[in-house]
């Protein structure tokens, strides 16, 4: 990296917060993307890491990068699955880790958080004041800025949806250095600002750098439970999900997992998978304000499950038991990672999940391969794993991946429901978006990148 740029960065944030020792830079080059689609980062010697502490410093860094024509890569917790933060070309990595401001606004049921606050830190701070924050994409080391930029979802989104639904205000730095403050501690904001804000949610940072956010919190639920429902039949298991939703009960989350994967994961974590019966499981997370309502819902859901052939459900109620189940669920992905080439994030309309399974089973037969499967059943979002298979070439993996994507699209779905596009999956964007739509995004980006004339 050019010495003058390193010096200029040091002038902005101070000597201590610029990292260009290649040994140290190594820690900022990768994220959690699957090996098969991973983008190779630029050499550590060509990358400099800078750690600004506020929007003003971010603004100056962006202006500098613009002036010098150097690419910038914004890095949060590094937990992404699309190489969104990977410096694929020589450039500047902006690590948000120092933006740790966190304020719980009890009166308004909101939190004001810096982009670098991790999900784990937010959950803890919120719990301390009696609040709860539902979105949970698995790794609690994910940072708020990244969660918003990628519109993260995860396991507890059936009732209240993705990250977008929790964002009330944003501080964003535009590529040209202007700092925008949009929305705020408002539940409603129908001015232009409130609408403009949504442009920056889920666009993976291509339109600006999120530095701070106002988030909506949920009160702590008095009665919560996670029900583990075992099934011997996979399709029966998944076909139960739309029926539960149609019954009018909207759980916090409904997850689908399979015996092979959860037992492997539990073993790795030193835990034990609670159910000894069945091969396929629904994990149904419920949260209510009193126990009677909770149990009424549990009984109703259980009777739907039994009608579809489930075995006797198990019930986790203590925080530790529920946490352990969520932990096993969250850690399936990292457990399988050493054995996986890729794990497409395909998403179809919730009612089509049964059809999706049928198609995936056909692929298993066609390719003579076991496809580990888990995901957010009620969102129609599954993560079939493309396992590493001896003797397979890149082309064979690519063929299987494309088939999975095409199935999703054919069933009215998309190639990614939550992991995003990033650098790793840009080439598949065309399967979802028309040329006109992609062009429109480009135009918007272009406008935001143009330095204002005043």
């Amino acid at each position: 990296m050019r010495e003058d740029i390193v010096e200029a960065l040091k002038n902005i944030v101070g000597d201590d917060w610029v990292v260009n020792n290649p040994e140290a830079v190594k820690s900022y080059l990768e994220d959690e993307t699957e090996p098969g689609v991973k983008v190779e980062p630029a050499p550590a010697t060509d990358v400099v890491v800078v750690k600004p502490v506020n929007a003003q410093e971010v603004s100056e860094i962006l202006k500098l990068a613009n002036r010098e024509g150097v690419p910038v890569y914004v890095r949060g917790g590094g937990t992404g699955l699309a190489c969104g933060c990977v410096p694929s070309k020589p450039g500047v990595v902006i690590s948000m880790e120092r933006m740790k401001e966190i304020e719980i606004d009890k009166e308004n049921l909101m939190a004001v958080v810096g982009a670098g606050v991790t999900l784990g830190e937010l959950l803890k701070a919120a719990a301390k004041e009696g609040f709860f924050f539902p979105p949970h994409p698995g790794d609690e080391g994910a940072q708020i800025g990244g969660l918003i930029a990628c519109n993260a979802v995860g396991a507890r989104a059936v009732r209240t949806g993705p990250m977008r639904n929790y964002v009330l205000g944003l501080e964003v730095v535009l590529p040209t250095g202007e700092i925008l403050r949009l929305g705020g501690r408002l539940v409603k904001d129908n001015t232009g600002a409130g609408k403009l804000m949504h442009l920056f949610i889920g666009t993976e940072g291509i339109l600006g750098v999120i530095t701070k956010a106002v988030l909506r919190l949920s009160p702590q639920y008095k009665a919560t439970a996670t029900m583990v429902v075992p099934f011997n039949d996979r399709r029966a298991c998944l076909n139960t999900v739309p029926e539960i939703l149609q019954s009018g009960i909207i759980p916090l989350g409904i997850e689908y997992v399979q015996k092979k994967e959860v037992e492997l994961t539990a073993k790795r974590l030193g835990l034990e998978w609670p159910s000894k019966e069945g091969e396929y499981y629904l994990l149904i997370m419920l949260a209510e304000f009193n126990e009677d309502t909770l149990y009424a819902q549990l009984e109703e859901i259980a009777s739907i499950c039994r009608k579809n052939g489930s075995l006797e459900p198990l019930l986790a109620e203590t925080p530790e038991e529920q946490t352990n189940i969520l932990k096993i669920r969250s850690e399936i992905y990292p457990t399988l990672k050493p054995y996986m080439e890729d794990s497409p994030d395909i998403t179809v309309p919730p009612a089509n999940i049964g059809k999706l399974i049928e198609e995936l089973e056909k692929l298993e037969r066609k390719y003579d391969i076991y496809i580990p499967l888990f995901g957010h059943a009620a969102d129609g979002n599954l993560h079939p794993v493309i396992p590493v298979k001896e003797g397979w070439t890149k082309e064979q993996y690519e063929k299987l991946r494309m088939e999975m994507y095409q199935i999703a699209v054919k069933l009215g779905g998309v190639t990614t429901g939550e992991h995003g596009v990033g650098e790793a999956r840009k080439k598949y964007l065309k399967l979802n978006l028309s040329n006109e739509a992609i062009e429109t995004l480009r135009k918007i980006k272009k406008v935001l990148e143009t330095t204002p004339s005043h």
Partner: protein
Amino acid sequence: MVFAEQHNGKIHPVTFELLSKGRELADRKEVELSSVILGHQIREEAKELIYYGADKVFIFDHPTLKEFDSILYKQNIVSLIREEKPEIVLIGATHLGRSLAPRIAAALNTGLTADCIDLQLDEDGELIQVRPAFTGNILAYIKTKTKPVMTTVRYKVFKARERDPMRKGEIIEKEVKVVEDTGTKILGKIPREAVNISDAGVVVAGGRGLRRPDDLKMLEELASLLGGVVGVSRPLVDEGWASKDRQVGFSGNIVKPKLYVAVGISGSPQHLAGMKDSEIVVAINVDPSAPIFNVADYGVVGDLYEVIPKPIEKIKLRKMKL
């Protein structure tokens, strides 16, 4: 009175720490400090209790006392306490101590405070026992209205005084009350299995800063010199350099050692979640802005390959001298 815990005739170091605190309390109250030891062929070891501060040592020496038996130990100590009437009884808050002390307290129908981290005297000379409660969120100051005041004290909170082999004191052999069958029996010791880094007192952990799997050996050397074990961050487990049972972090083991040395670990939130409650954190990293330094007590910004050999040399040299 200080209970001297011994295993195979070797006195547990918490005993010396208790003697040191006991000495201080006894001097301020102007009373004697006694100690009691139970075991078999422990007369030589009993002298150590005097060297570390006891005025009087009561010995119960008998083959049946060679290994711990909660009922036998309790009976002999209870009768000694009834005779000697000490004001305060201190017992180490080890597993053995915490199994034994409640039986004694219940037999004497007196108060017992667990796992204290400080002992003070108030203006009336009454013992104030300080212990953490609610997972360390609060400190409770506790007084006992019955006598003796009984307390178990956490290991490694008080410093043992210097051993003084010139120190004089009285050793009193007591008659042992033997019970044929107490209902419990030790059948044997079991070799400890796999490393348990969650319980280790010292953890030396390596991360992405290491260049080769072989370099973990260097950390192993440092760890064993410090009496600890080696841990790793997640990337090393993912790379297959170390087994999962060594992983420190949210998805691995949560550790709370007295000393945590993070070597070439930048400090991802996932890692910090597994070690942030360590008592003292030392970080060695080339990156001065690595988040690990935010939770470190001491840190060195530098190349771990230059840093680590130095303390290894230093400790080795010291051990050779001893």
